[in-house]
């Protein structure tokens, strides 16, 4: 049992009314693994990612974080307590950053650790410094989100998620909302996390990045995982026609 996955998705299915968004998806992610999810818009990538911390609950199937079932059926109150503690272990980074605009960078980072882990002000400050150092923004500690560039905002959002010391990080198109010249600084932070063996699941449109950084690539289309494998195989030698088609469009058309 040494290779118990950190994330284990079993037969995940999700429908919005008659629309089946996820169809029987299973996925295991081992500790330290970095998985990229690619696929056309509307294929269910975000839905799958958001099912992992039960932000978009599944209609059927199970999600496990190590030996805890995330989407356990519990009475409302118990479920609330359960999910809040599970989510502390799962960091999430959004396309639109979602920094708290009424709090400065330091407060953005320390809000959750202070409220949930009851750490002292000094420890919280130290934590903010440590995380900001990681993303190279220590000099912005007293800025407000509105005073930062998009790339800086996303780096702060990553620092905020890391401050909870999560076991897994989920990225939902973390660079899609950024001006092209700001993408690289965020990619660098993610690469650095990869070198530190952070477990990551990354939804991305950047094939180059997926190829460089990830151990495994999943290609999704219309709610199913069409093909998965190491990046060399998926990008250089895909077996499925849908994958080939998708990659043909995305590898040449650099936007």
């Amino acid at each position: 049992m040494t290779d118990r996955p950190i994330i284990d998705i079993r037969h995940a299915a999700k429908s919005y009314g008659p629309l089946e968004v996820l169809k029987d998806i299973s996925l295991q992610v081992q500790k330290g693994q970095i998985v990229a999810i690619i696929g056309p818009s509307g294929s269910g990538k975000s839905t799958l990612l958001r099912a992992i911390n039960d932000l978009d609950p599944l209609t059927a199937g199970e999600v496990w974080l190590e030996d805890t079932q995330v989407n356990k059926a519990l009475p409302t109150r118990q479920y609330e307590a359960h999910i809040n503690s599970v989510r502390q272990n799962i960091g999430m980074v959004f396309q639109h950053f979602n920094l708290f605009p009424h709090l400065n960078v330091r407060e953005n980072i320390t809000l959750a650790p202070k409220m949930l882990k009851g750490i002292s002000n000094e420890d919280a400050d130290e934590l903010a410094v440590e995380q900001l150092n990681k993303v190279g923004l220590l000099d912005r500690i007293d800025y407000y989100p509105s005073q930062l560039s998009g790339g800086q905002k996303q780096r702060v959002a990553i620092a905020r998620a890391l401050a909870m010391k999560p076991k897994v990080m989920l990225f939902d198109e973390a660079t899609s909302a950024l001006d092209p010249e700001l993408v690289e600084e965020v990619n660098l932070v993610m690469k650095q996390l990869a070198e530190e063996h952070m477990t990551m699941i990354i939804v991305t449109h950047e094939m180059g990045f997926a190829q460089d950084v990830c151990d495994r690539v999943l290609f999704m289309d219309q709610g199913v995982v069409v093909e998965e494998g190491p990046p060399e195989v998926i990008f250089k030698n895909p077996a499925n026609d849908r994958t080939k088609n998708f990659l043909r469009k995305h590898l040449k058309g650099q936007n």
Partner: protein
Amino acid sequence: MLRVFPYFLQAAWVTLQLSVLSCLLGLICGALGAAARLSRSPVLRLVGATYVSVIRGTPALIQIFILYFGGPQIGIQLEAFEAGMLALGFNIGAYMTETMRGAIISVDRGQNEAARTLGLSRFETFRAVTLPQAMRLMIRPLGVNINALIKGTALVAAVSVVELTYTAQRYIGSTYKPFEMFFLAGAIYMTIIYVTGHGVSWLDRRAALK
């Protein structure tokens, strides 16, 4: 003219007290109403919605009359000032319910998601993330509610509360100068509203600084 001035000042003080007290009551009713309307419980949501639609669907004057004249019939004996203050407070509370609810639901959904993803509970998220942002959004529209409330206090003249409008009416009899009396009352209302409006703008600017 000069003879009546002290009485108008006294009346202005009554109008001010009415405004402040019913504003405080309105803010409390508004907060409770908004909480009810946004609650997970269908019963509370219905209570909130009923409060809002009943109050907004009937004239404020009728609400004042019901409390003052109808109250004793069901064993609630109130002074005119008390009845007026309570009726105005419940009345503006319904509008403030909608203002507060509107501000809360217009905070970006992503804010809630980001906080919940970090592990904050619904309540913690509301307190630390949603509410502070909603507060900023509600300052101006609450200012509009308060403006309406101050002018609405004139209605309690109908149950003989000696506030500005009532006082103006009363001194027409002895002075035979209706224009001056109402002009003076109007000027005092306008002063109160002007100052309040500036207070609201100041709060709004301060809240938006960050």
